Structures are given as C-alpha cells and as structure tokens.
C-alpha cells in the first residue's frame, strides 16, 4: 500500500515509517498537515491509506481529513492521538476513519488495522 504518514513528532514519523517500510509498504512521511495535504492532492488516486496525528501545529489531522472529504476523496484514515481520543466517537463521525489509535499503541494494533484496510481494498 502507499501510505501517507503525518505527525509532528519526528521519532514517531521515523519509527512508523521504518516499520511500514519493513512491511513492504510505500511510505510518504511528512511532519505537518499542510505538506501532507499538498502531497496527497498532487496524486490522490495513488494513496491507499493516511495515518495522521490528531493534533499538529498548523493544519491538524482532523482538518486535513475534513478537507479531503469535502473535496470528495474517500481514502481510509487512521488517527493516532496523544490526547486519548479512541473512545470519542464524535471524532470519527462523518469521516471515513478506520481507527483511532491512542499513543502509546502496540504495533500489533496497527497490524490489525492495516489488515482491515487491505481486506477492504482487496474486496473493492
């Protein structure tokens, strides 16, 4: 899969990027929402998944996803959050969000989400 990762925590970005690369995914890591949105819009059809931090300085994850939805893109999104958002269902309403993972999360949790997305992709 081609995955866009957005997080302003450099180490999360690096580790997550390395891990997904190890799993043979193509990773596009960016440290802010503005850059992420630009890269996505350059070639929107090629992205299979967005993994984004919930809050970032500048354009945050939820604004990026809302913007993509407004423009008609239906890409699956996984939110990662340091604010304990996983139980806040209102966050995921109206947006095609596959999962909200609260930091610290195990890579096993991420693997389950990736399998879910891949299964969904294959069905389509």
């Amino acid at each position, binding site marked *: 899969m081609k995955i866009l990762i957005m997080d302003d925590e450099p*180490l999360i970005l690096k580790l997550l990027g390395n891990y997904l690369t190890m799993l043979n995914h193509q990773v596009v890591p960016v440290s802010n929402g503005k850059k992420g949105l630009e890269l996505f819009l350059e070639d929107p059809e090629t992205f299979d998944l967005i993994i984004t931090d919930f809050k970032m300085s500048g354009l945050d994850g939820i604004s990026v996803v809302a913007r993509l939805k407004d423009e008609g893109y239906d890409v699956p999104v996984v939110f990662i959050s340091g604010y304990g958002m996983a139980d806040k269902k209102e966050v995921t309403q109206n947006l095609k969000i596959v999962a909200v993972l*609260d930091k610290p999360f195990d890579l096993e949790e991420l693997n389950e989400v990736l399998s879910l997305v891949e299964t969904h992709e294959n069905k389509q």
Partner: protein
Amino acid sequence: MGRIIKGIIFIAILGAVLFPVLCWIDAFELLWEWTGFYENIEIDELFILFPILVFFFVIFLGLQVKEIIYLSQKLQVSSDELKVSQSQLVQSAKLASVGEMIAAVVHEINNPLGVINMAADVSLILHEQGKYDLIEEHLRAIKVQTKRASVIVNHLLEFCRDAGLEKQEDVDINEVINKSFIFFSKDLSNKNIKVIHELSEDLPLVNGNVIELEQVFINLFSNAENALRSSSEKQLTVRSFHRGCFVIVEVEDTGCGIPFNVKSKIFDSFFTTKEKGEGTGLGLSISYKIIQNHKGTIGVESEEGKGSKFIIQIPVMKVHENIDNG
C-alpha cells in the same frame, strides 16, 4: 450588650473598692462628712465591707482573665485554621490549574510513551530478524524518550505536592517562566498559538518561592490560551526585563480581552468567565496573593477584542532584603 453590662458592673465594683481606700485621705473624710451622703454608715463599717468587696473584685477579675485567656486561645486556633485553609486553597488552586491543563500534560507524556513503545516493538522485530546493529539506535531513542517523560512526570509531582511552599530562595524568573512551559508548550503549538519569548538575559535574581511563582505563570498562560481560542491572530508574548528596583514580567496575548465591566473583578476569588466546569475562579486571586507575598504587584491592561497584558513587578533581591529590614 452583655459586655456593656459587665463593663458597668466592673466600674461599679472598682468604684466601691476604691471608695473606702480614698476614705483614708483626710480631705476626703472632710468631703465625706460635708456631703453627709453615708450619714448612717460609720467609716469603720466600710472597712469591714472592704475585704468582702476585694474578694468579689478578685473573683470578677479572675473570671475576666479566664475569659481573656479563652478568647486568645480561640483566636490562636482560628488563626491556625485560617493558615491551614489558605494553604489548602493555594493547593486546591494549584491542582485546579493542573486539572485545567491535564489534556496538555497527558499529551506531553503519551507522545514519548508512544515512541518508547514503538521503538521497543520495532527492536523486538529487528531482534527476531537478527539485525542487532539496528537495535542500538532504537534503544537510544527509548532512553531519550524515557528521560523526556520523566522530566514531565517529576515536574508535575514537584508542582503538585505541598512540600516546599514555605521555601524562599534566590530565583531566576526566566528559569521559572521556561519551566512553566514544560507542561503545555506543545499544546500551545498544536493550537496554533505563536509563543514569543522576549526574556532579558541580564535579569537580576529575586527572592521567592519557585513553585508559587510558577503557579502564577501557569495561571496566566492558561488564561491566555483560553482567551486566544476564538482569535484569528493567536499570539502570546512573554517579556521579562529589569527596571529600577524591579524585575518586570509581561504576559501579553492577542485574545478576546477583558470586558470593562468585569475588569475590576478578575482578581476576586471564585470569579471566572470560563464555562462551568472549566475554571475555578481561583487562578488570578491566588496569583494576586502570591505576588503580594513576594512584595510585588500584578495588574492588567486590556481592551475588549484586542487582547490583554498582565504586568508583574517583583522587587530584586537586594531591595527585597531592605524592605524586610524596614
């Protein structure tokens, strides 16, 4: 009313006791005879009454002394209770400040925990794959992030606990300002609040309590963050400089400002403009008290819709000592 009656009785008894004593004076005896007021009572009979009156007077005096001792003990107990209440109020306000910024604190801890957990997971995979040379980098990341989380947790503990409230020491105000940002600098950045530090490099020391002063700055930053929520221009400027005998700190925001009709109430206890459950109304009143205890002043300049500037003045250490010495 009871005290007035007691007073009259006291004066009456005092008069009755002093009267026979004065009778020893010849001139008074003459006056006594001239008035003929006590014509049926012999002077000698008055001297029989004298010890009885003294006895009652001593009893009365004893009761009064006992009551004075009782009242002074009661006053001492009340004063001690007041001190405890004040200390509890300071503690409550401190915990309320932490409560108000708990989301930011959680974020500051969860982020390094996220890195640690992920680095550990990746290390395990690398270990399984026998790529030992790549593990070291992840272990180093774990160490750095553990330190990062522990700084926040330890500082939270230091800030919350009761100990050290009485401790007075030489304080570098700039250091206190920087420590105050530990909890929520990332949160301010996430909320797109631009923080500008204009801290003078040659700031003299002040004498004070680091934790209390930090509480003041946290309250001001937290209020500024709240005021900036709906502003288009989100800027928080923290300035420190030295003028005359004072170290001055200005905390200025471009937020909603303070309406004129509430400006005089902002330092009152339990006054808040925040939503129910979001503010205790203790932050600024406690801050006012803390700055007052540091022999300083805190004031505000504000314009509704344009922003607020809180100005704190604290005497530099030498002046402080002179004030103490009178």
